[in-house]
């Protein structure tokens, strides 16, 4: 892979596919304004994960209340409701006397096209495999039945943050704060622990795993990110236990220094590009694009949160500094998407050479699309934490509290 060539192609792509985006759809239920200010109830309807399937035909939306809504693409490219189901219920862990939330932490679709689409959903402790079947309904139309086919439970002492399918179509990994387990889709009674960073003495605990992802094509590679800003790549071929990682990526140049340094370096999301040639990591202030062959510094650092640096103190006071933002690649691996505050989101082209800031808001007759401006008041409660990009079209999905937004790229302005 010649990196210069790729960057050049990405620039070309940007030139001929202008990054201008327009609002397409919005979905979600408004909070009932007449209800009491019961914060826990109000947050039930917040989106907690988003995922397109491998064809783009479906978009799955997971919620804090454990509900999953699946939308399907219509002929005019918009998405309409296909089905919805309750994925997880809250449970009480008797051993720790703690409630296990029903919040859906992540949704991933089975990577291969199948007559019956399948998806994995996970909350803090349990992963489930669902399949969606179309049947003849009572009145002759088709109805969609969603069935939980497998439940993978009891393998995580800590909270699960991610699941990822292997390209072999047979296995997947689930990751919690300290461990990564490898499962076979057909076997729910056993899992192999392949990474374990738990220290012998828990008092020495200083680092947790924050996210993980399999390579889209190589069945043996996966990456995981940590709260110390490290990205480790492990090779399943090397050994049965992957504690000795194959590569470790770390950006040793830090801009901030001081008290907040550690808090902003924690990586909230890490993924391979769809072509498998690059890795992106999202931390609080930046997105970093990595060339897997170079471990000591990222290929590019995309900065779009510099305006937050002077406000870190406030963000720490209201806990916003702990927000975990996701990021997404587009299908050609030339573009990146990530969310921010004030319902802003950023499209980054050509490895960060061009950053297009946008704002997710339903356009009304009076209000034109808004864009972030430097001196706007920071509204930290309006945050786009969750993002997803259609696998082969320029359609992006954003999750901001209880509302989901779909934006499409405007194509009238493309050079012919």
């Amino acid at each position, binding site marked *: 892979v010649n990196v210069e060539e790729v960057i050049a192609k990405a620039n070309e792509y940007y030139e001929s596919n202008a990054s201008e985006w327009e609002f397409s759809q919005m979905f979600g239920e408004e909070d009932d304004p007449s209800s009491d200010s019961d914060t826990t109830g109000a947050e039930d309807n917040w989106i907690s994960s988003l995922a397109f399937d491998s064809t783009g035909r479906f978009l799955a939306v997971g919620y804090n209340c454990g509900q999953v809504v699946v939308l399907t693409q219509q002929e005019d490219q918009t998405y309409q409701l296909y089905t919805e189901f309750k994925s997880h219920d809250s449970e009480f862990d008797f051993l720790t006397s703690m409630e296990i939330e029903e919040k859906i932490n992540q949704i991933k679709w089975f990577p291969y096209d199948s007559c019956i689409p399948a998806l994995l959903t996970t909350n803090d402790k349990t992963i489930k495999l669902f399949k969606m079947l179309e049947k003849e309904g009572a009145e002759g139309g088709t109805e969609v039945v969603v069935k939980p086919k497998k439940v993978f439970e009891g393998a995580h002492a800590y909270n699960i943050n991610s699941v990822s399918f292997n390209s072999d179509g*047979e296995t997947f990994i689930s990751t919690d704060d300290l461990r990564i387990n490898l499962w076979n889709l057909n076997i729910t009674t056993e899992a192999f622990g392949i990474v374990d960073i738990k220290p012998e003495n828990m008092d020495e605990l200083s680092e947790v795993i924050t996210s993980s992802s399999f390579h889209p094509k190589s069945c043996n590679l996966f990456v995981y990110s940590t709260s110390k800003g490290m990205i480790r790549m492990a090779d399943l071929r090397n050994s049965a236990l992957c504690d000795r990682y194959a590569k470790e990526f770390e950006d040793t140049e830090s801009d901030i220094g001081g008290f907040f340094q550690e808090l902003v370096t924690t990586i909230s999301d890490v993924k391979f590009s769809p072509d498998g040639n690059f890795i992106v990591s999202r931390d609080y202030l930046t997105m970093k694009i990595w060339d897997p062959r170079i471990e000591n510094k990222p290929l590019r650092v995309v900065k779009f949160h510099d305006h937050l640096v002077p406000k870190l103190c406030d963000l720490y006071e209201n806990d916003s500094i702990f927000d975990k933002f996701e990021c997404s690649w587009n299908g050609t691996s030339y573009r990146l998407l990530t969310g921010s505050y004030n319902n802003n989101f950023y499209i980054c082209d050509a490895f960060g050479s061009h950053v297009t800031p946008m704002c997710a808001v339903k356009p009304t007759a009076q209000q034109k699309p808004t864009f972030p401006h430097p001196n706007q008041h920071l509204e930290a409660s309006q945050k786009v934490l969750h993002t997803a990009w259609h696998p082969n079209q320029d359609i992006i999905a954003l999750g901001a509290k209880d509302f989901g937004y779909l934006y499409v790229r405007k194509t009238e302005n493309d050079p012919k």
Partner: protein
Amino acid sequence: MADRMGPVNILIGELKNEDIQLRLNSIRNLSTIAKALGTERTQKELIPFLKESLDDEDEVLLALAEELGKFSEHVGGRDHVHLLLPLLENLARVEETVVRDKAVESLCLLSEQIPPESFEEHFIGLLKRLVSGDWFTSKSSAGGILHIAFARASPTAQVDLRTMYKALCEEETPMVRRSACSNMKKLIPHIDKEIIKKEFIEIFKSFSKDEQDSVRLLAVENGIVIAEKMNEEENQQIVKPVILACASDKSWRVRYMVANTFCELCDTLGKEITQTDLLPVFVKLLKDSEAEVRSAAASKVTGVCKIVQLESAIRTILPCVKTLATDESQHVRAALASDVMGLAPIFGKNHTTEHLLDLFLQLLKDEIPEVRLNIIGKLDQVTPVLGLDQLSQHLLPAIVELAEDRQWRVRLAIIEYVPLLAQQLGVTYFNEKLGALCMTFLGDCVFSIREAATKNLKKLTEVFGDAWFKTHILPKIVELSKHTNYLYRMTTLFSINTLSSTVGPDTVANDLLPIVLDLLNDRIANIRLNVAKTLRMLVAVLDSGIVETKIKPSLNKLLEDKDRDVRYFASIALQSCNQ
């Protein structure tokens, strides 16, 4: 007829019931329904009915797939078997893997009964439809029935089949390639050698270089099957290079497969290739960086040494084996321990003494109990070669140490070896060295140990005989029956339970019965309860005279016991007296 149909009608009705348990029950009784309906109605009504309303619960579909495999007599035998195929075809396309696999299994079963004239039309037709299905599910199932088609198809049809197979092998989705690769070993036996060389070797080679680890690791087994069809020279050219490549594959799982099937590889590739090429590979696997691979190789040491020349085994394999005895992974050492004893008969007395004895002793002193146990378990392979005396001075301390291990599961494992040791050591040695040990097991603090010890007594008595029992065991049992802790008095009764069927009736009557009767007035109700139970067991072996004079009166006394459960078990025992 009406009577017979009644329950069957219910079963038929329940085929559509909402309750999945009822549907499942009906499906499992499908042959009952079919028998009641008769062949014609089964053909014309039952099968179409099942086809139209294919259930959507995986459990029901799985049961259906299984039943259909045995259904040919119900549809009228060979000439009508094909009626079942469409149903199974649908099941072979279903999403759930276990259902598809079962459908494939049933299809293979039924295929044997399809008459030759209609085989192509029905079976190969089905195969073609599965291969050209849209989804990976049907294609994967196609891979599972191909070998049946190959076995019975005409040469012309076989050309088509080979084209189909090739297409499956080149599919993009790994699931289909995996199915094609793992089924190759079933195809090969049915194909001409020349055609294998012309068309299948290429496929075999490309599978062994597939980008998916899960496909590559299946290639090793295919190599074994192919090698069986080739002669030695062809194996040199064709199969050997692929196996050698797999043995140094980057993925440890592929290397593991080579290690795991190493003996079969040696057998099929022949002595020469083994000696020249495979032996160095084996040595490398014994030193592999991944413990799982070393484990697999370690468990094949004896098998390999049987095939290669003794001299080269001593020169090349033995040094590795010695290193493995101190491997950092306990699983590797345990695997080695369970295999390495087999080397003794191969090496013979002198070589064993010179090269292996120290190794055995080292493993016998391993810090991990499992390793030590694995050595002890295979002693029977070494004692004929070395003789007992040499071993016993080292063996005994090791056994005693394991018998006193803190972990009760280790102690349990030792007990299980005791009868074996008894047989090999012989009575004198056993009495001298291990007798005391067996008795202490009876008084162990863990119940499972005491229980295993009583079973052990039975086996020992079977080996050594009643006289030995009376001299060595009986006194101990009597002593135990007077222990102040009731748990040990219970052990006495359990021992008598297991021994009652082993020792002669005289011994039971004269030696065991008195002990039981002595406990009749025990102050613990649980003991008295078990006295009743034991007496019941003794009734079966004692003659009626003794039952009348000694047992019945005792049980009658217990019928008046103040404890309700004692009275209950006494009455049960009395009932069996009267039968």
